């Protein structure tokens, strides 16, 4: 065949290695700015696998046609020649890198050849001739880096194009090429072969990486794909010998590879389930146990020193807890009310938390929250008795608030549930008995609100009793679920430090009273913020101690802090009155610290301030001179 250079201006470099040119296996496709070439190469790869040369030309033609059409969208005749011409026109005529010089030459030669070989594409012999020419071209390429191709084959031309193609277009063409490749099936065999040979390298390198990347995260996959592509581009010249072998596999792989190339572009969010937000799982079982714990704690709280604190607090919490009993069925309906009531419960219980009982409850509370439903149930069962008894006492001491009753009912109900879960019939009976007694007591006491409250109580109690008793296993599961569900809202709603305290206190089982809980949130109990503040110092204590501590010890620390605050206020009052003031000034504080022995002649207050307080507080306390003859804070 006579090689007629299509584009005189086209200077191609002979392919580096003859074997590369001869091989039809695709080399890594690197189309220089011309997506068409890539597409063609891809299609060629796909089509070239196991195909005879006869079929290739058509495929290549189609590929080239489409590629050219895409690139130019001008020629009506999608012939190999026109396509290649387009490719060549658009292809960069820059000299390829040394390692790619061979390929570029081959590509260019290939591109140039189709024009001359258009007619003979369909023949098998042409293919052979092309390969031969490609080889010759390859040899020539070695000699001529930049010059006319003696033989122009579609393969060589395309190879040149691919070699000279910018590296950046590797990824893009792949994705873009893929949609184009599929429609392009019929192309010139040479083009296909060349393209496939050029592109096979990419798929060759890609499949092992992409296939291996299957299990890898998509992010890594993308990175590795890019790397593989890059590597392919680098190694274009190397695995040309592998092209023929890889042809069959590569062609099949290319399609898959093309697909894989496309896949990385897909939203990685789908492939990264870890990034997706997971809805909080709510298990009814946990909730139930949690509520049971709450009852236990509430009961425990109610038992001690109710006389000292407002006993009303326990009642509302109890009722709240009790309402949460029937999780098995009316979980949804009760949940909102429970939410309202539980914070109530927390607050009230916080108030009633007697240290003697709180000691127990707090220890059990946090544990209960963390333990499985079984454990809290057991703990609750053990304390149910005490709680019920204490609750009865507290109920008598109740001053009478409408909130109390519902809480009591709730707590008693919860206590009931816990009891049932433990399958302690005796306790359940006791609780029920106490509940009844409590209810009666409540009704006797409160005149105005009792009616409304107790109207709820029997309803709630009856429902809870029935549901609780009949579906103990259900309750367990439902309660646990509810516990979980409640834990989340509790944690969200209640202040973080409060939850720990309140939960521990709530776990104290309240008496078996199950009066209807008041859905409205009452006034916040005194304990809640107070406990929060105290907890702050308790944490500091545990930090300073640097040793593991018991919960009982922490509660002891709380008591000590309370006493300390009382002493502190008394002393400050004495000092300020001694100075004839009604306002406590920092001087009083300094005097106090001096008397405590913290401040002496060696250690001044400022030293202590600098030592223990953060900078912002230091600036407020220690007068410092600033520019402009000003002192802050002003003395």
């Amino acid at each position, binding site marked *: 065949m006579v090689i007629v250079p299509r584009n005189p201006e086209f200077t191609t470099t002979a392919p580096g290695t003859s074997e590369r040119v001869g091989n039809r296996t695709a080399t890594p496709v690197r189309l220089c700015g011309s997506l068409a070439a890539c597409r063609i190469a891809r299609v060629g790869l796909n089509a070239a696998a196991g195909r005879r040369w006869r079929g290739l030309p058509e495929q290549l033609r189609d590929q080239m046609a489409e590629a050219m059409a895409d690139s130019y969208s001008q020629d009506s005749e999608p012939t190999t020649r026109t396509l290649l011409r387009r490719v060549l026109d658009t292809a960069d005529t820059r000299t390829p890198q040394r390692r790619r010089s061979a390929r570029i030459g081959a590509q260019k030669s290939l591109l140039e050849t189709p024009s001359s070989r258009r007619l003979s594409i369909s023949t098998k012999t042409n293919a052979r001739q092309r390969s031969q020419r490609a080889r010759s071209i390859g040899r020539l390429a070695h000699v001529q880096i930049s010059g006319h191709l003696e033989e122009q084959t579609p393969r060589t031309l395309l190879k040149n194009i691919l070699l000279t193609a910018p590296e950046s277009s590797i990824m893009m063409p792949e994705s873009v090429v893929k949609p184009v490749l599929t429609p392009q099936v019929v192309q010139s065999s040479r083009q296909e072969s060349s393209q496939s040979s050029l592109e096979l390298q990419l798929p060759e390198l890609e499949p092992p990486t992409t296939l291996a990347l299957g299990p890898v995260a998509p992010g890594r996959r993308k990175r590795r794909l890019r790397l593989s592509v890059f590597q392919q581009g680098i190694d274009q010249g190397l695995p040309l010998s592998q092209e023929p072998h890889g042809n069959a596999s590569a062609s099949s792989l290319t399609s898959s590879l093309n697909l894989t190339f496309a896949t990385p572009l897909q939203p990685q969010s789908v492939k990264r389930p870890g990034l997706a937000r997971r809805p909080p799982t709510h298990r009814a079982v946990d909730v139930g146990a949690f509520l049971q714990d709450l009852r236990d704690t509430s009961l425990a709280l109610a038992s001690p020193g109710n006389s000292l604190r407002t006993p009303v607090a326990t009642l509302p919490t109890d009722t709240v807890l009790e309402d949460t009993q029937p999780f098995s069925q009316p979980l949804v309906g009760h949940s909102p009310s429970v939410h309202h009531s539980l914070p109530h419960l927390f607050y009230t219980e916080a108030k009633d938390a007697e240290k003697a009982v709180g000691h127990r409850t707090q220890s059990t509370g946090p544990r209960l929250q963390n333990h499985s439903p079984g454990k809290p149930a057991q703990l609750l069962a053990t304390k149910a008795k005490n709680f019920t008894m204490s609750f009865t006492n507290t109920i008598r001491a109740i001053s009478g608030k409408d909130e109390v009753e519902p809480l009591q009912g709730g707590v008693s109900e919860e206590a009931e549930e816990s009891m049932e879960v433990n399958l302690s019939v005796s306790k359940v009976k006791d609780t029920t008995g106490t509940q009844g007694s409590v209810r009666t007591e409540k009704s006797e006491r409160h005149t105005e609100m009792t009616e409304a409250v107790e109207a709820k109580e029997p309803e709630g109690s009856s429902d809870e009793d029935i549901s609780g008793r009949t579906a103990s296993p259900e309750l367990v599961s439902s309660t646990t679920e509810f516990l979980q569900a409640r834990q989340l809202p509790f944690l969200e709603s209640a202040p973080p430090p409060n939850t720990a305290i309140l939960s521990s206190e709530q776990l104290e089982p309240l008496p078996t009273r199950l009066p209807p809980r008041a859905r409205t949130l009452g006034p916040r109990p005194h304990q809640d913020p107070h406990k929060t503040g105290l907890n702050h110092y308790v944490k*500091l204590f545990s930090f300073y101690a640097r*040793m593991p501590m018991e919960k009982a*010890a922490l509660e002891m620390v709380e008591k000590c802090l309370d006493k300390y605050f009382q002493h502190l206020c008394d002393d*400050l009052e004495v000092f300020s009155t001694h100075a004839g003031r009604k*306002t406590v000034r920092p001087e009083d504080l300094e005097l106090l610290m001096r008397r405590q022995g913290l401040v002496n002649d060696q250690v001044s207050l400022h030293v202590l301030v600098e030592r223990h307080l953060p900078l912002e507080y230091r600036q407020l306390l220690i007068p410092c001179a600033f520019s402009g003859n000003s002192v802050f804070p002003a003395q």
Partner: protein
Amino acid sequence: MALSTTVSQRKMIKRKAPRGFLKRVFKRQKPHLRLETSGDLLVHLNCLLFVHRLAEESRMNAYEAKCGVIKKEHVQAAAKVILKKSRG
């Protein structure tokens, strides 16, 4: 104001002073008295030192009892001493 600082300990200790809490406590105890703005910071400092001393004393008690965990008894004994000291 100062935010929580990460300490070497596993816990995150907040260096912030619960000024509202302190003011509330003082108001509850002595409603007829007033506390100055900087006063509560010094009160916070006083609390820190008290808690520090209490913790040290408790640690000593636990260590003397050859116990790896601070127990309630240790804290109680320490509280007795420290409260007496900080009576002023």
